[in-house]
């Protein structure tokens, strides 16, 4: 794969159950439902407890609206509240604290071309996620809420991953040959 990724953590040395992805999956699922039960009076939509793309959109557009007085679109829950949803700020701080406390924080630089590719990919992935109305995480929450179109999204995403992984496998074989 082109980068350090989740597969690096798949070794057998991590036996601690708190480090298992299934623990976090259960945590996000239950807490997302709890968050909705707690906060839904502030505004919708439903199945919005956690979403990387939507919550980034709410954070950026919400703060831009406050600072610059613009009227960029965001979810009702963030538009009605005193400040938009802050979960992405939390993810960045939580990830930083976890990486620092285990000495896994390490500056990894790329080439300028890498930065341009990742920047453009970030822009494009956000457009795609917003057209669907969620990132892979909100798709999972929506599926749990009973939205079968989100299940279609997940299956389609799995197909995209398989095609992408197959292409990268072929590239790698060609480089070896």
């Amino acid at each position, binding site marked *: 794969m082109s980068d350090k990724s989740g597969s690096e953590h798949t070794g057998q040395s991590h036996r601690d159950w708190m480090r298992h992805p299934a623990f976090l999956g259960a945590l996000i699922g239950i807490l997302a439902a709890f968050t909705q039960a707690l*906060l839904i009076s502030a505004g919708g939509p439903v199945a919005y407890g956690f979403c990387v793309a939507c919550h980034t959109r709410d954070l950026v557009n919400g703060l831009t609206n406050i600072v610059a007085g613009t009227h960029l679109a965001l979810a009702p829950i963030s538009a009605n509240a005193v400040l938009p949803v802050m979960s992405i700020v939390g993810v960045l701080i939580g990830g930083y604290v976890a990486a620092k406390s285990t000495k896994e924080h390490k500056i990894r630089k790329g080439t300028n071309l890498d930065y341009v590719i990742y920047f453009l990919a970030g822009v494009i992935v956000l457009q795609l996620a917003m057209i669907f109305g969620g990132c892979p995480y909100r798709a999972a929450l929506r599926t749990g809420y009973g939205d079968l179109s989100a299940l279609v999204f997940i299956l389609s995403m799995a197909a995209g991953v398989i095609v992408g992984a197959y292409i990268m496998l072929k590239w790698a074989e060609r480089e070896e040959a």
Partner: protein
Amino acid sequence: MVAVGILPRDIAIYAVPVVTLMLGLLIGYFAQRSGYCSIGGFRDFYLFRHTRLLSGYITLILASFVGYLIFWFIIPSAMEGFFWANTNGLFTAIPGAPGGLSPAAYFLFAIIPGFFIGLICVYLGGCPIRQTVMASEGNYKAAWFFVGMCIGSIIFAAWVSGAVVVLMKSVGFGV
């Protein structure tokens, strides 16, 4: 019908940033510890038959169903339209995408973006949450991905959202 949660509205509007910040802290911490990634789950299963990451994503789907079910029993007024396919019709999308289009449009909005998000993110080596966590670990490439998402938010709200609706209506997906 206006959904009513545990907190009344005038308290909830102050609680939104605080509660979501704490939720994010927990998710960020454990996502870094576990290497949580949805795209990586499908990729590792396809390439190596590893189920570790995939189990995290499947657990998320199941746990969210259980969570919504539990809170639907406790406070049904907060779980508006649960179970969605039952109360709103099969394959009807939960709001969030640009509005005012036919159900067929939202079906396309699930298939096409889904496929390309999978394709792009497997090349990048991680889904949006993995990129965000890698950015917090000091990965500059992932940080640029996050900056791209932030700039993309403004681009989407300013131009793309409206253009997509106009395009879809012009090819007959309006209501």
